[in-house]
Every structure is written in structure tokens, then in C-alpha cells.
């Protein structure tokens, strides 16, 4: 069964239709990458999944459980969010907390186990992103790539069923993107279900099980990396792919 089903999601801001009828589903352990130009609705889609925006219409189901509906209480929205993790473009670490505290804060506030368990889990996650030696550092002492790896560990600490990335390397210096992409690739090997919005075309292709190309608020093309990148059906997709590959 699909871990995530998105059905006919629509979202508009002040008359501007940002998402028009977006549907897809994702199997457990699959990695979905979403590509497309700026303003195509990629980020809004992720924000709807994480309930930072409320979809105007449509349904979101996780493991068959319907999360969307009118009149959700704040409590329900908070619970819904926990099915998803979100890694931001700008990391958004909490500057006043150490790396370790950034990871343990939410599990502690949500009372997810004893302090000992939470600390142990956080250290395991830091190991996973290769930053155990930085556990007592503050975000301002880290490079962008390291901050983003901490942000990934922080999102994983709540065991989300689907981990979302919103252009995780866009704010990084080019030489720092590799370390973040390697972590994401490592998570795929451990069967983490992920949705990655990215402008890194090679990465989008190599890490994905499914690729979605979005344009003007609709899924213009969806398929395996080979289908979307090598044999796109839609003219728009072909044009976009060609544009990203053009040599100077």
C-alpha cells in the first residue's frame, strides 16, 4: 500500500492558482524528486504536505489515513505534521541551541521517551550525518553544509513517515552540496521515504525512484528517471530538460 497518497490538491493565493489538481502517490522507501522552474508550485506542494499551508481542495492520506478536511483543530494539524518531516532551504536551525539540543528539543517537548533515550537517538542520528564531534557546537560555528546535515538529523528525530526536502542545497556554496546530497543518498539506502524538491538535475535523476516535473501548478510529467529525463512525453518537459543540460 502507498505510504502517501495525494489526491487532487488545489491551492491558490489571492486568485493566483499555484497548485491545480496535483495527485500522486508514493510507496514506502521510495524517493520522489520534484523538478521544475521557480514558481511552478513545488515548494507550495511541500508546504501543503507539512500543513504550513492548507490545501484549498483535495486529500492527503498517509498509510490510508485521511489527514485533510475542513475544520481541523490546531491539535489535529500538529499531529498531522508529525507524519512528515521538512528540511528547509535555509536550514532554520535554532541558533541559541547546540547541535545536540537542536535535535533533542522537539522530542523532549513532545515527550517522546525518556531523556536518556532521546539523547541516545540524537547521537545515533548525528553519527548518521557524520557530525558526532560537533554535538556541542552552535549553528553559527558550522558551515552551511554541516548546518543542513544537522537539520536533517533534527527532522529524523521525530521518525517522520515521509521526509521532505525543500531545495536542500540551494543556499549552499557549490563545494558544500556534495556532503548534503551524500547524506540524502545514505538515507535512501536505509529505505527512508523521501520527497526532494531540487534544482540539482544529476542528483534528482540518480537518487530518484520517481521523478515529477512540475510546471504552472500541475504535474506535467511523472515517471521513472529514465522516462522523464531521457524520453519525456510532454513538449514542456523536453524543453525544460534541454534547458538544464545546455552547454554554454
Amino acid at each position, binding site marked *: 500500500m502507498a505510504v502517501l497518497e495525494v489526491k487532487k490538491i488545489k491551492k491558490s493565493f489571492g486568485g493566483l492558482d499555484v497548485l491545480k489538481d496535483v495527485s500522486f502517490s508514493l510507496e514506502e522507501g521510495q524517493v520522489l524528486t520534484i523538478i521544475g522552474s521557480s514558481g511552478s508550485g513545488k515548494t507550495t506542494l511541500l508546504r501543503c504536505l*507539512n*500543513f*504550513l499551508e492548507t490545501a484549498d481542495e483535495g486529500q492527503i492520506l498517509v498509510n490510508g489515513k485521511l489527514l485533510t478536511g475542513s475544520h481541523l483543530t*490546531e491539535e489535529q494539524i*500538529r*499531529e498531522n*505534521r*508529525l507524519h*512528515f*518531516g*521538512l528540511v*528547509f532551504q*535555509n536550514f*532554520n*536551525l*535554532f*541558533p*541559541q541551541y547546540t547541535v545536540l539540543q537542536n535535535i533533542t*528539543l*522537539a522530542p523532549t*517537548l*513532545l515527550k517522546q521517551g525518556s531523556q536518556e533515550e532521546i539523547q541516545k537517538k540524537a547521537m545515533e542520528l548525528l553519527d548518521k550525518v557524520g557530525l558526532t564531534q560537533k554535538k556541542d557546537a*552552535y*549553528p*553559527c560555528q558550522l558551515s552551511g553544509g554541516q548546518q543542513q546535515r544537522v537539520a536533517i538529523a*533534527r*527532522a529524523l528525530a*521525530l521518525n517522520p513517515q515521509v521526509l521532505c526536502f525543500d531545495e536542500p542545497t540551494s543556499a549552499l556554496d557549490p563545494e558544500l552540496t556534495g556532503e548534503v546530497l551524500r547524506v540524502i543518498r545514505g538515507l535512501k539506502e536505509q529505505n527512508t521515504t523521501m520527497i526532494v524538491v531540487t534544482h540539482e538535475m544529476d542528483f534528482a535523476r540518480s537518487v530518484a525512484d520517481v521523478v515529477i516535473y512540475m510546471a504552472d501548478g500541475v504535474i506535467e510529467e511523472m515517471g521513472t528517471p529514465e522516462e522523464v529525463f531521457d524520453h519525456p512525453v510532454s513538449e514542456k518537459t523536453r524543453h525544460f530538460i534541454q534547458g538544464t543540460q545546455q552547454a554554454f
Partner: protein
Amino acid sequence: MFVPVTMQLLGGFWETLKVFSLTLLFSLPLGLVVSFGSMSKFTPLRVLVKGFVWIIRGTPLMLQLIIIFYGPGLVFGLPAMPRFTATILAFTINYACYFSEIYRGGIESIPKGQYEAGQVLGMTKSQIFFKVVLLQVIKRILAPISNEVITLVKDTSLARIIGIYEIIWAGESFIKKGLIWPLFYTGIFYLVFSGLLTIFFGRMEKKLDYFRG
């Protein structure tokens, strides 16, 4: 003469200190409440609070002291409240309004991403405010708050207008005995006290220096 003058001034300074510390005690938290009002999404409340802040910031504290002390009696025939209570009330309302604007500026300067990071981690609104945002706000507003606090030290002298025997009044009372130096002496009290506050705020700033944001 030095010792009796000092004793007299200390008596006045004690009143000054009381006005100062009680005003801070009440106005610092009240200012936060006012700032939430001025940021409310509920327009009537926001307009009301902003209008109130405008009136308080737009009129002299001395006028507010006089109105709060004499107003209830003259307008409604109510019994006058004790001078000291009226003083604390006027100072608290006045400073809460100034603090509220400092808080608002600080809170609104925190990037949206900090709130969103808290939200996607399942935190409640109050957890986000107290555990994520507040310390960052405090770091950002420390300098303007210290400005207001040091201004308050000197504003306490206004309380004499409704009969609070604060330190300048105490110093002035020696003029009729032909002594001017006690007045200068009161200045020393103010300087030392605001110097201590400056050191205190400097330490606080240093304490929050460990993070950037």
C-alpha cells in the same frame, strides 16, 4: 553636614528605587501583553491597543501622573488612591507601552523560518514562542530595553509632582538652608545607579553573545 544630607538623600533614593523596581516588575510583562495586542489579527483589538499606545506615548508622563492621581476623584467623585499606588500605576502603563513597541519590533524581526521550523517539529504555538523565539528576541531587544530602563531611573523624579518624596526633592530641600551641593550629590546617585545598570546590561549582552541570530 555630610552625614545628615546623605541620610536624607538615601531616604529619597529609597523612594526612587521603589518606583523604579516596581515599575519594571509590572511593566516588563505587561508590555509583552500589550505587544501581543498590537500584533493581534483581530482588527478591533489591534486598533484599540495601537490607539492606546499612541495616547500614552504621545502625552507627557507628568500629565498622566496628574490625571491618574486626581482624575478619578474629580471626574467620578471616587476616593483618591494613595500617591504611591497612583505613581506605580502611571509609570507602569507608560513604560509598558514603550516596552511593547520594543517587544513588537523584536518579535517581528525573527525570521518566519524559525516559527515554521518549530511548527513542522510539532511544537505548539506557546512552545515555539517560549522555547524557540523568546531568547532570540531578548538578545535583539537588550540594547533598546537598557535605554528605556536608564531613562526610567531619571523619570522617577517626575513622581514628586504628586507628592512622592524622591531624591531630587530630598536634595532640593537643602536649598532653603543655603546648600546647593546636595543637589549635585543627587546627581552622583543617579550616575552610580545608571552606571551599575550599564554594567548589568553589558554583562547580559555578553552572556547572549554565544549565539548569532
